[in-house]
């Protein structure tokens, strides 16, 4: 039963080796998805390339449905899997700042690293900016502590917040994703930019 490392009490070095292996799979999947191209990623926000939404929601649904099945068959204890804690104002304001960074830089941190690894110079500069951003956050932390830690709600789940079962929420999410994929296909035809997409 999983999580293996926690329940089997495996030593730290094995967990770190798993981290390296998971990272290799993560970087490989991001690069194969075409996320090493900033113009492909940015296409999401202008409609000419909607790969981002397709990959992102497919991945979330595969992991969500997969983990629920593993839990149902007694193969994974979901109580031992990390659930992100909800700091309301930090999540919203942090998200807005990230969105601005996304459209300016053309990458998010993970896709930036995958682009860097294949030699994109803009991604190397983006990563240098990322390290600078982490440094600035650490240095300004004393002034924004209240914002960062305010309105704390704990590791609350969305199905609890809505008062519905996890299974029903998963069903709604799949339906919403199917609708978005359909809209994405229409958008790619309507906002097609062959001059850009032929190159990427």
């Amino acid at each position, binding site marked *: 039963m999983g999580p293996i490392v926690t329940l089997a009490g495996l030593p730290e070095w094995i967990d770190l080796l798993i981290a390296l292996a998971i990272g290799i799979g993560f970087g490989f999947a991001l690069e*194969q998805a075409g996320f090493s191209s900033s113009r492909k990623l940015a296409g*999401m926000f202008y409609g000419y390339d909607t790969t981002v939404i397709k990959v992102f929601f497919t991945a979330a649904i595969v*992991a969500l449905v997969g983990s629920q099945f593993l839990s149902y068959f007694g193969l994974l204890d979901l109580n031992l899997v990390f659930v*992100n804690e909800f700091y309301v104002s930090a999540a919203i304001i942090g*998200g807005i*700042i990230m969105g*601005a*960074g996304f459209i300016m830089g053309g990458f998010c941190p993970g896709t930036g690293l995958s682009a860097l690894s294949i030699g994109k110079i803009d991604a190397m500069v983006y990563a240098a900016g990322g390290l600078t951003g*982490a440094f600035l956050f650490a240095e300004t932390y004393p002034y924004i502590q209240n914002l960062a830690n305010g309105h704390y709600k704990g590791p*609350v789940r969305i199905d609890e917040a809505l008062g519905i079962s996890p299974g029903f929420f998963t069903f709604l999410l799949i339906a919403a994703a199917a609708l978005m994929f359909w809209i994405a296909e229409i958008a790619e035809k309507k906002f097609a930019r062959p001059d850009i997409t032929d190159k990427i």
Partner: protein
Amino acid sequence: MNPYLAGTMLGLVLLLAMYLSGRGLGASGGLKYCVVSIVGAVDRQHADNSVYYSKYFENDSKPLKNWLTLEILGVLIGGFISGAISGRLKLVVEKSPKISAGRRLAFAFLGGVLFVYGAQLARGCTSGAALSGMAVLSLAGFVTMMAIFGSAYLFAWFFRKNWI
């Protein structure tokens, strides 16, 4: 690769991380540990006196010996392998022909600063907060995801000349 197939592969990697280590994927966290480690090496006194850095050096712990740091090292290796297989290894500045390389790089740097600053505040980026959060039904994950994409759509109009 077909986006739905690539998404399935990404989802299976995330599921494996949950099953093996009980955690999701991340990218910005690894960058943070690199910065913490550099600051500790350059000015240990500053790190020990700071409310932010000091917690990473308690009990003689080494910030680089960390799940997230090894994971992003793996991301670089995995990305490189994929690029090599698909013949995409090339030193290049990717940009719209309408803008200069300098402009592209300036915006890339600024974007990196903002994205990772926001990710530290929200305790995760598109991978750690949005994707991994959604996979465990975390409310924070869904809210962060909507804030990131909503804001990027809102700002897209202002920066359209950089891309289209």
